[in-house]
């Protein structure tokens, strides 16, 4: 059996580990446009911050490919897939055949077209190790940095370089920071905390026009800058399949074993859509834990096993300048709220089920809430009042604890 994996991040690694659970000898080829050992993409801001290094940010040990018997083709791009002949063609002219193909191409930064953007010399995105290296080289103690986008990527970038530049200004069209994962009050807390570390925000505005070292804003005024980082969002990288299936532009659609509608072609990770169990809707969940689990399920399925991918929810754990935030699920329904000095918690529940939560500061035992959402545990089965106050196993039934902690088989 010949397995071909396009991509080399969490979903691809999950697939390699999934395949090897079932098939110890099939030939695995991993193709990546990046010339690097698999690394943790979210760590690029920690690299600039000096909290990790290139070796430590490797997502798997040095011998990962040899231990798993993978052939690596790194630094090459796949130009197209021929699903009829079951081959892919590379930019070096080679053609590689497969029996089972996995698309794990992740996402690509979205760059809105803005007048004058070609005039900006120091313009970067912040998605890859090469992006981080390039940005690291471009900044110095005198740099005025303009970041477009107050989301996860933009703000992690700001934290990563905060100590190394003169000033950072973050502009976002939304009127609040981290609007994709926080409610208004949470945004306020995070925004104030990040501002207290010297980052300036200009919210509710976009860039109308760029000059070489200046951004003209939509509501008037301008921001001078030396270095520009565009981090307004990402899009699923579906280009290889959207040539065949145009409907895939908003994320590749698969069944629960990560199989696409094309025979022997699978997809996993940020380039796909998943069923968010907290909302019941299909959406792109560009999250590393999701990507790994999808990749593993795809690998198992490609190798002839069966492990459906399920229980996906949006979930984010992230910290900015020492303040931790964890969130999961959807923010709909009734609200339970607790605020204390340095911590903020909001739980969202609807029709007897926990749907989502936000915790800032104290994130202890947050996974107990996540499991309530992921596993669809009826709140009538637990002491909901207690679990609201404090995520704990005490709130669950004795039977649940006997099974989970006591090893009693039900």
């Amino acid at each position, binding site marked *: 059996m010949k397995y071909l994996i396009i991509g080399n991040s969490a979903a691809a690694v999950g697939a390699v580990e999934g395949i090897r659970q079932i098939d110890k000898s099939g030939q695995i080829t991993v193709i990546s446009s990046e010339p690097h050992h698999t690394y943790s993409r979210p*760590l690029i801001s920690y690299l600039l911050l000096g909290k990790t290094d290139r070796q430590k940010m490797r997502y798997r040990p040095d011998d990962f490919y040899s231990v798993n018997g993978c052939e690596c083709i790194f630094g090459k791009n796949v130009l197209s897939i021929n699903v009829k002949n079951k081959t892919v063609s590379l930019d070096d002219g080679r053609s590689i055949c497969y029996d089972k193909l996995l698309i794990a191409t992740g996402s690509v930064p979205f760059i809105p077209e803005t007048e004058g953007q070609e005039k900006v010399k120091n313009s970067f995105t912040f998605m890859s190790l090469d992006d981080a290296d390039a940005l690291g080289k471009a900044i110095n103690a005198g740099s005025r940095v303009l970041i477009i986008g107050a989301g996860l990527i933009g703000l992690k970038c700001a934290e990563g370089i905060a100590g190394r530049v003169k000033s950072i200004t973050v502009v976002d069209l939304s009127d609040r920071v981290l609007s994709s994962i926080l409610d208004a009050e949470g945004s306020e807390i995070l925004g104030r905390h990040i501002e207290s570390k010297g980052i300036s925000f200009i919210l509710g505005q976009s860039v109308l026009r760029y000059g070489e070292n200046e951004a003209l804003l939509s509501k008037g005024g301008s921001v001078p800058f030396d270095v520009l980082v565009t981090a307004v969002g990402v899009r699923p990288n579906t280009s290889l399949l959207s040539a065949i299936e145009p409907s895939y532009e908003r994320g590749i659609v698969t069944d629960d074993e990560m199989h696409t509608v094309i025979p022997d072609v699978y997809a996993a990770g940020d380039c796909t859509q998943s069923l968010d169990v907290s909302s019941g809707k299909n959406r792109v969940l560009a999250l590393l*834990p999701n990507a790994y689990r999808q990749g593993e399920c795809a690998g198992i399925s490609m190798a002839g096993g069966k492990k459906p991918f399920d229980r996906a929810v949006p979930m984010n754990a992230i910290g900015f300048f020492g303040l931790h935030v964890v969130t999961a699920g959807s923010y709909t329904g009734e609200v339970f709220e607790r605020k204390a000095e340095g911590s903020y918690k909001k739980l969202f529940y609807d029709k007897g089920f926990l749907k989502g939560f936000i915790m800032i500061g104290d994130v202890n035992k947050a*996974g*107990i809430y996540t499991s309530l959402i992921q596993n669809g545990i009826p709140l009538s089965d637990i002491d909901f009042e207690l679990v609201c106050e404090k995520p704990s196993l*005490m709130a669950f039934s004795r039977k649940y604890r006997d099974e989970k902690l006591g090893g009693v088989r039900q």
Partner: protein
Amino acid sequence: MKRVYVNEKWCLGCHLCEYYCAFANTGMKDMAKALCNLEIRPRIRIEEQDDISFAVSCRHCDEPLCVKSCITGALSRENGVIVIDSDKCVGCFTCILACPYGAISQSETGAIQKCELCAKTNDGIPQCVAGCPNGAIVFEDRG
């Protein structure tokens, strides 16, 4: 593999397991000296309310959501035991968000900590079990 199991009805809520755990991870010989004036950060924690108490520590799950969620690759499985490479961990707490039991916590270094069944410190003999005076925590292979 052998795992730590909890007999809830035998737990006295004495918290000794927490002290033995904290001590086991200091690498020191004398418990009193090791824990003197120390705010302990055990990897096993007692939950208690009214007359119910029980210890919670890593279940070393067959489907370890923490390992699969770890963004750095710092969590992995070695001979069945879920272990943490503290050097690789950046303290993002995705594992805390993923663990259904609340069994992962923050260490004093900012990295996460969790029960590793004393594999690194006491030849794989969990000290919480050895120190429990009432048989409320056991270390057994139940398949």
